[in-house]
Structures are given as C-alpha cells and as structure tokens.
C-alpha cells in the first residue's frame, strides 16, 4: 500500500543570479513500511526534496500525497505529526539550553500524547527505545557524544508517533563504528514500529544496509529508481554506474569496517 506519493514535484529557487532548478519534475511512490534511499551527489536536490516532504518548503509545482490525501501547503497537525525527521548535524539539532528530556517531550506536549502526568515516563521509554539510559533525560546535550545526540534526535522524532520518517544524512556526521550502531537501531525501529523511511544519504554502504529501494538523483532529476540489489548488481543509468564505481575506499581498515557495516554487524 502506498503511503507517500510524489507527483511531478518541482522546486525552483529564485536567486539573484537566476533561477536554480533544485528539484525537477520528480515522481515516485513509497510503500508503507518501506525504506527508500535517496542518493545523489552534493547539490542534486536531496535536502530540497526532503524539506518539501516535511512541509518546511513549499513546492513550485506538483503535489505530495500522503496516505491517499493531497498535502496542502499549510499542513494540519495530523500530517505534521505523521511526518517527522532526523537531521544530519546532531550538534545543532538539540537545544544547548534545554535538557534531553525537554527536547524529547516537545512532541508529546504539542500533540497532547498521553496524560500530562505520564509524559516524563513516556520520555524515558522513548530514550530507552533508542538505547539510551532513562537518567539521560536530565542531562544537557553538551555532555553527550555525537552518536548519543543522534539517538536523542531519533527519540524526539519517534515520540510524535509518526508513520513516515525523513532522515537527511542521519549518520554522515558520525564516525564509522557509531554509524553502524545507529543504522542497526534505525533498522530495528523501522521493523518494530512499522515505520516508513525516506533515507537520504550519499554513502552507498549505508544504502546497501538499510534500503529496500533506491532513488538516484542527479541535478534535481530522478534518474533511476529500483530495488537495492538491482541497483547495485545491474545499474541501468550511466550516472548510477559511476556513483557505484566511485565508492571511495580509504584504506584496509576502513574497507573492513565498510564490509562489517554492509553485513549489518
């Protein structure tokens, strides 16, 4: 069953130096429970696409349908709650002046999820679910590692009980070992909570590890969309082939880590 459907979506930015076509006439569908990876080089329009799905940016033309209904320019609470995101930079994603618990609780208060008296308990459960100790709710973000902060970001998004989670390079700011653990967590959570992911990344090792299908973007256009195995074994578009060929391998140690990552250990 289709959860998200993007039809002829286009975003053009008007800049002083002329129009920038960030996303051009893109159409695709995401099934409920699926993880769609969106890959493409820097500037190919991935974040712009994510922002339109999240309602942060309005589309120039085209439409986004969610669970059968067209999303209006001004989202209502039901849709905002149902579509959450995890951002790339875990350093700026948490308010330095609020403790972890307050950040995770935001969605609970906004949508009045559960009785007020139970919300701290819910916050602690949310932290536990992402592998963090309950006591962490009292801590300041500055005392957490990058990986821990990213887990808090995930807990905050999931506290809203969303159906679709848009992840914009959620692991690219983390070192490889932490990356592997966070990816495993994301996979677990998707299975456990029947979530749907739009997973933006430029790391093909990550794609292989999390994605059911892959959408390849180039200069704002969707150039190839297929099942992950198929994209890796028989890429059709020359651009996809060059992407796969261009996976940089730094040294043996990293190669080993990447292999481990790909095995999901």
């Amino acid at each position: 069953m289709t959860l998200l459907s993007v039809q002829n979506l286009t975003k053009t930015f008007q800049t002083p130096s002329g129009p920038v076509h960030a996303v051009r006439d893109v159409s695709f569908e995401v099934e409920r429970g699926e993880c769609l990876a969106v890959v493409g080089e820097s500037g190919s329009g991935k974040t712009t696409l994510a922002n339109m799905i999240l309602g942060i940016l309005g589309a120039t033309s085209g439409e986004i349908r969610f669970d059968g209904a067209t999303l209006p320019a001004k989202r209502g609470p039901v849709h905002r709650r149902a579509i959450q995101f995890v951002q790339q930079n875990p350093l700026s994603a948490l308010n330095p002046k609020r403790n972890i618990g307050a950040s995770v609780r935001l969605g609970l208060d906004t949508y009045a999820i559960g009785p007020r008296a139970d919300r701290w308990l819910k916050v602690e459960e949310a932290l536990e679910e992402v592998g963090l100790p309950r006591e962490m709710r009292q801590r300041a973000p500055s005392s957490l590692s990058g990986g821990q902060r990213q887990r808090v970001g995930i807990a905050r998004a999931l506290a809203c009980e969303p159906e679709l989670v848009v992840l914009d390079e959620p692991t690219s700011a983390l070192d490889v070992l932490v990356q592997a653990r966070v990816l495993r967590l994301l996979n677990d959570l998707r299975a456990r909570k029947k979530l749907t992911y739009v997973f933006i990344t430029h790391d093909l090792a990550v794609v292989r590890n999390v994605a059911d299908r892959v959408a390849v973007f180039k200069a704002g256009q969707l150039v190839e969309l297929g099942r992950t195995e198929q994209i890796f074994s028989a890429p059709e578009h020359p651009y996809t082939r060059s992407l796969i060929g261009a996976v940089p391998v730094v040294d043996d140690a990293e190669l080993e880590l990447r292999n481990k990552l790909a095995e999901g250990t």
Partner: protein
Amino acid sequence: MTRALRIIAANPLSLTGLILVLAIVLAALFAPWIAPFPTHNSAVVDFAYANSAPNGRNWMGTDLVGRDIFSRILYAYRISLGLGIVVLIIATPIGTIVGLLAGYLGGWTESVLMRLVDVFLSIPPLVLAIAVLGVLEPTLTNAMIAVTVMWWPWYARLVYSIARSEREEGYVLAAEVIGAPTTHIAFREILPNCLPAIITKMTLDMGFVIIIASSLSFLGLGVQPPTPDLGSMVAEGARYLPDSWWMTVFPGLAILFAVFGFNLLGDGLRDVLGADE
C-alpha cells in the same frame, strides 16, 4: 553557582567588580543603619558644620548647608540602584520581546519592528531623554520613563541579532517540524539562548543607567532636591571648585565606582555564562 564564583574569583578584575557591586548594594540596602547622619537625606540644615572639609566627624566633608556627604552618597546609591533596576526591569522585557519576534518571525514583523528600533537608536540617548523630560515634568518617575524609552531598543537589537542566528539552528527546525507553537519556539527554545547575553548586558547597563540618570540630574532634569542624587551633588558642588573639592570629588568617585563595578562584573559574567555554551 559555586562554579560561577570560582570563575569570577580567578580573574582579579571580575573579582574587583563583584566586590564593588556587593559593597554598593549593601551600602544602598543598609543606608539608614550605616549612614552616620541618616536624617541628612532630606532638606535638613546644620549650619554649624556647613562646608567643612573631610574630618573625623564627616569623613567626606559636608555640603553648603552642613549635610554629611558620606550619608548622602549612601542614600543616593539607593536612588541610583533603584532607578537602574526599575529601568532595566521594564526596558529588558520590552526589548527582548521585540527582538525575539523580529528575529524569529522575520518578514514584515522584522521590517516594522526593526525600523522602529532603528529610529530610536538613531537619536542620541541623552537627547531622547531630554526630549521626553521636556514634555514631562522632571521628576524621578519621569526620569525613569525617559531612560527606559532610550534603553529598550538596545535590548531589541541585541536579542534580534542572536535570535536571527539561532533561528537557523537545527533545534529550531526540529521544533518547527514537530509543529510546536510559535510562542514555544520563541520563548522556550530561542530565549534561553539569548539569556546569557541579556544578563551580561543588564549588569553592564546598570553602570550606564546610573551615569545617564546622574547626567540628567546634573542637568537638573532628574531627581530633584532635596532627595540626594549623585548627579545633582556633583552639579551643586561643581560651583565651589576647587576650594570645596570634596563636594564634587566624593559623589564623582561614587559614580565612578558604580560604573566600574558593574562593568567589571558584567565582563566577568560574560566569561561565566559564555563558558557553558
């Protein structure tokens, strides 16, 4: 708290500021008990001791009608601090709200509010205050209004610039995507990040408000006699310089200490509050 004290104590300048401010605050609070002549805060005369240089009885000398200058300075600190606190307590929230809304909401709210702020900022502060006092009667309350009118735009400017950069931070985006109300984002997410700068500025400004208030009363536009005020004491004494130097020097030093104290402490607080970012 103990950490804050340790950071301040580690810097001799901040420590000096803290000590000066504490001394001034205590002097103002306990003026009726500390002052050797507590009745000299009013229109009393004591011609037997008029115009005497500092001595064992009047440590800082007396004024033309024989009032003890040390006692009057203690009372004048009450007025200065009280005025500073009232001004800042009114000016800071106004400026903060204006700056937050302009900085976070952007768009036409930003244009309108910041244009208004710029208008206020383009007028030299003392001129603005004098203009206000030209319309209103020169009383203590009106002096406070005048100083407040010239003060809030600086807070608007400060908070605006912080809010503008904070609104680009990921945590603001996260709160927006979650769908948190605008008031929550402005006051619960962004405001806490402006507080260190606001508190530091308030401390620094206590000194400046005291100077401005003193300048106004020096010009005869602020606190009116017989209420003791540092500015009017300096103005009055200036007529008898250099012979009766104590009438100007001690109130002048009192202003200086206050300004120095709050400035040094403000700088110290900047270190303390900036450190936990």
